[in-house]
């Protein structure tokens, strides 16, 4: 933890005025060129090509590059109810996922920051789900939340029955309206520890005397948190929201493993719809259009963040 800042900080060496010819400089550029070319092709070239495909009529196994203009996009937004529902599902997922991760992560971090014994152990426990795949998470949570039947409850529902809390029983991810919340629960289990780690690193960077001074002035713990700690954590909150947001806008693995994707299913999201449309249905052009729409959402979130990060770094 204490060493986290050294990797996180993005310090640069001051620009050197000397621009003499230097063979080593040439070697340096030659060494990085393969990576630049790879990114240029595999990221930017491919995005461009996907964008082009999204404007064609390709709807079969064999490519068909006849021009179709924006028809694929028009159809998705105007006629395709499944696509619109998938956007809505993803929006719902994003809001609840980010909200719960921030809330739980902050709570865990604030409590852990009280320098309790066994802090390291708790931190380890809260963070380990980050190490496993969303597929594992999905498989396990599908088992935990498996509602069972009316006569034979299973999973958490069974636990509710045994504890006399039967009224809490719910269809979880099988609920057509709110089933996405069951997916959120699994996702929060996986990612709340990450939020906690971010907040804890942020809290540890706040000088103690700042909060101490407020306490001496008679501020309650709640006031200290609200008026001093949280405002200082704002940059961390922003970073965390962006990282969680881009994960959530791309969510695919977890809904696949929980088997909640598909038409009229509660966990149908654009990432899954794109996969089915393209690789199951062979509607390549429409799939490409969905992919480009996903990219636009993610880019809207990420580009301002990248710009502000690197601008701040250039000024530093």
């Amino acid at each position, binding site marked *: 933890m204490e060493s986290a800042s*050294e*990797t*996180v*900080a993005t*310090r*640069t*060496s001051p620009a050197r005025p000397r621009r003499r010819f230097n*063979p*080593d*400089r040439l*070697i340096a*550029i030659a*060494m*990085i060129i393969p990576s630049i070319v790879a*990114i240029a092709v595999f990221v930017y070239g*491919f995005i461009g090509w*996907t964008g082009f495909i999204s404007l064609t009529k390709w709807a079969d196994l064999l490519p068909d590059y006849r021009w179709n203009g924006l028809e694929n996009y028009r159809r998705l937004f105007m006629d395709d109810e499944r696509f619109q529902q998938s956007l809505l599902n993803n929006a719902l997922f994003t809001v609840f996922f980010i909200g719960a991760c921030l809330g739980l992560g902050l709570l*865990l971090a604030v409590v*852990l920051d*009280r320098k*309790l014994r066994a802090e390291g152990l*708790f931190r*380890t*426990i*809260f*963070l*380990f*789900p980050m*190490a*496993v*795949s*969303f597929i594992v998470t999905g*498989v*396990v949570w*599908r*088992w*935990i939340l498996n509602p069972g039947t009316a006569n034979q409850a*299973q999973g958490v529902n*069974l636990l509710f029955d*045994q504890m006399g809390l039967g009224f809490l029983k719910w269809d979880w991810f099988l609920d057509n309206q709110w089933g996405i919340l069951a997916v959120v629960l699994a996702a929060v289990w996986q990612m709340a520890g990450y939020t906690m*780690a*971010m907040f804890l690193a*942020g809290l540890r*960077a706040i000088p103690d005397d700042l909060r101490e001074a407020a306490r001496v002035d008679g501020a309650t713990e709640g006031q200290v948190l609200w008026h001093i700690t949280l405002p200082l954590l704002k*940059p961390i909150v922003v*970073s*965390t929201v962006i990282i969680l947001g881009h994960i959530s806008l791309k969510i*695919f*693995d977890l809904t*696949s493993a929980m*088997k909640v994707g598909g038409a009229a299913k509660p966990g149908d999201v654009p*990432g899954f719809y794109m*996969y089915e449309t393209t690789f199951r249905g062979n509607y*390549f052009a429409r799939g490409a259009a969905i*992919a480009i729409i996903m990219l636009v959402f*993610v880019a809207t979130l990420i580009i301002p963040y*990248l*710009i502000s*990060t690197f601008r701040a770094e*250039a000024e530093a």
Partner: protein
Amino acid sequence: MSTIKWKTPVSYLFLTLMALFFLMPIYLLLVTSMKSVAEVSRGDIWGLPDRINFDSWRVALVGSRAAGVTALWPNFLNSIYLAVPATIISAMLGSMNGYVLAKWKFRGANVLFPLIMFGMFIPYQSVLVPLVQLLQKMQFGPLKLYGTIPGLILVHVVYGIPITTLIFRNYYAAIPDEMVEAAKIDGAGFFRIYSSILFPLSVPGFVVVMIWQFTSVWNEFLFALVLNGNPKVQPITVALNNLAGSFQVDWSVQMAGALMAAIPTLLVYILLGRFFMRGLLAGSLKG
């Protein structure tokens, strides 16, 4: 100060309850995988197994025609053949890129770097179709890239460039420029400076990057699903997803399979958790 008296027990109570919540799926994984099929179908999923039974582990590992389960062990090996080379190549590439960007700043690097970084955030759906098309066309003698482990390694190495470059660049930026300048004055060239100054100091950086890459590649699903559809070359995430998708497969076998898929990265986390944390925080650009 009197408030401290009740706050500490409450804190511990809260943390303990949360710890139970976070550990519960692991408990369930373990006990379910060790129950007999009959016991699981009887219903009580929360209790300890009547008798510890490794049948489901065996079925998940080597498969069983009777239970309609194909073995996961070959897929586990696929994941190793995939993740180990991809991790090593990614780390070497990232180290070189980070060295160039941190110590050989050239004109345009400030524009280039964010452009590279953008690559780690894109939804991979937006590159999948061209990727399939290109890999289908690329063939070097007997080495095919579409639907093969080497092809998937290439994909992970390329899309791993942003994060590995970022971590190494930030790591090397913390090494004083004066050391590099002094070596230059002594006549050391590009590779000499790297091998005698930067590389020996890079061990923690390599550990962070390799943990990050190993975990990401091991856990990755979308590329593997689309590019390696043939069960023979599927990594374990895809095989597990197929196993779990089948209605006939017993829960205990699914849980044993999930455990198999989780164990390598969990081990890495338990043994090298401190470095895992650093990678995590570095992956979010700024703290």
